């Protein structure tokens, strides 16, 4: 069953603007991760935020996590054409350890207009 649900399903913005994507999930988690997928390729890990963390930064990426609302957001600042891709959130169950598989949402397709 799907755990994460991204919102919006698609987003088109101008280059240089900020892009915000949201993810909601249903059950307790050990951590939440964001991945990027360029068309027809594999997924690339972007950032991981643990259940006891509220915010994390990596370069132009900012992730927040609200476990009380079971939601997360991914902010990409100063977007570039190369950021055009699909973005997925994925949750790891409380058992952790990396062995049980992540549950992915259906993704947000981001288009950066030059």
């Amino acid at each position: 069953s799907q755990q994460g649900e991204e919102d919006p399903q698609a987003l088109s913005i101008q280059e240089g603007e900020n892009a915000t994507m949201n993810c909601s999930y249903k059950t307790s988690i050990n951590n939440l991760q964001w991945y990027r997928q360029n068309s027809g390729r594999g997924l690339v890990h972007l950032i991981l935020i643990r259940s006891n963390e509220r915010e994390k930064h990596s370069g132009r990426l900012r992730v927040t996590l609200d476990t009380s609302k079971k939601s997360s957001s991914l902010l990409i600042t100063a977007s570039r054409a190369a950021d055009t891709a699909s973005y997925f959130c994925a949750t790891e169950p409380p058992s952790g350890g990396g062995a049980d598989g992540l549950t992915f949402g259906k993704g947000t397709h981001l288009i950066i207009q030059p």
Partner: protein
Amino acid sequence: DVKVTQSSRYLVKRTGEKVFLECVQDMDHENMFWYRQDPGLGLRLIYFSYDVKMKEKGDIPEGYSVSREKKERFSLILESASTNQTSMYLCATSGQGASNGYTFGSGTRLTVV
């Protein structure tokens, strides 16, 4: 960097054929996973393995089996391919604790005709 290699980028098979999808990693990762990705459905976990010769069913194991005889290789087997198994198949690996997330292969786009 961890590298995860899937043996084929594109594959076309006939209904009823036995299909092998291979995944090889070049790091010492314990955990390996097979997902399929379909439009509108996202990624769904088929099988995973946390050690050699160990396997666990994911959310959609029906019609599939797996083999992990060596730590670096995880094979997905379609015993008798059907058209509803036409999909993008993604292999992924993670180390203990998975603090750096999963590393994915480039995917195999399988078409069953």
